[in-house]
């Protein structure tokens, strides 16, 4: 007959395990999220590395933020001496791998709603094709970053 006093401890341990499992199941983690600030109301670019922790590929199909009117995904390409930029509908984060939104390549193009300052932290929610979402905190950095 186990001591009754031990039951709450077991329950607490069980809850903790569940919470840990929920965190581990988060399909995507992010690192190095930042936005390059430009003067006035010019559109900005956001960059982040996404890590897919699952065994299947994940497709990012959109992004929203309370601080931006709208956000698009764009791809810059350097072709025969020309810089070209194209909007893209989705990007794929391969299973167990990473995807980089990085300067000179894929980026989030962001039309701001209000002034931002260097050092501001801005939440951006990514939407995935499977219906899940994840919110990432982007740090606003200076133009010369």
């Amino acid at each position, binding site marked *: 007959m186990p001591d009754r006093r031990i039951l709450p401890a077991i329950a607490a341990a069980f809850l903790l395990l569940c919470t840990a499992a929920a965190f581990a199941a988060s399909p995507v983690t992010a690192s190095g999220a930042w936005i390059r600030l430009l003067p006035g109301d*010019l559109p900005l*670019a956001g960059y982040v590395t996404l890590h897919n922790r699952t065994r299947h590929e994940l497709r990012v199909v959109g992004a929203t933020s309370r601080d931006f009117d*709208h956000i698009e995904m764009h791809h810059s390409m350097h072709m025969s001496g*020309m810089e070209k*930029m194209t*909007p893209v509908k989705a990007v794929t984060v391969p299973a167990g791998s990473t995807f980089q939104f990085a300067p000179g390549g894929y980026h989030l193009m962001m039309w701001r709603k209000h002034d931002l300052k260097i050092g501001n932290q801005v939440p951006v929610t990514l939407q995935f094709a499977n219906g899940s979402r994840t919110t990432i905190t982007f740090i606003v950095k200076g*133009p010369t970053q």
Partner: protein
Amino acid sequence: MKQVAQLAAVLALALFVTACGNNRQKWQTQSIAGIMPDLQFTLTDENGNVVHADDYRGKVKLMYFGYTHCPDICPLTLATIGRALKQLGNEADGVRVLFVSVDPKRDPPQQLKQYTNAFGPQFVGLTGTQDQLHALSKRYRVAYGYEKPDTNGDYIVNHSSAIFVFNDDGNAKLLMSRTDGTDAMAHDLRQLIQGS
């Protein structure tokens, strides 16, 4: 024996001359001396004044075509140049970065001024009429073009990745690219400022 000594002397001299010659032309970015024409243009600067290439005589000039509604490549390129200028310290005062907007519709002088100021005191915004911009881009064999506007009226401008570098007299010297990196840019700019 005398002949051998003479030959050795000639060889040594040849080696010395070659070494010096190489030293003088040791660029880490692409040389375009004698390939591209001298800098010439009539444009409007960020203060609304009509300017010509001669107005920047005495400075080493970098010329880059872009537009301010370009959130990724243009700031990346200008920031890369800015870091190279930082490496030059006080010598950076001898440089002007001419950011030529090929999007005059959205880049009036005031907009350009605010934009270039964000990158440093050496950055100057220029733009012009389509005729002026076409003449300049044709002179340096580059192109630019506009994509169709989206529902918000925003449009993408495709532009050259080239950074043309001219010496203090306006002679074309180097073709740089953001992918050359700050160290190579700083090295070549320093060499150009010091007049080698």
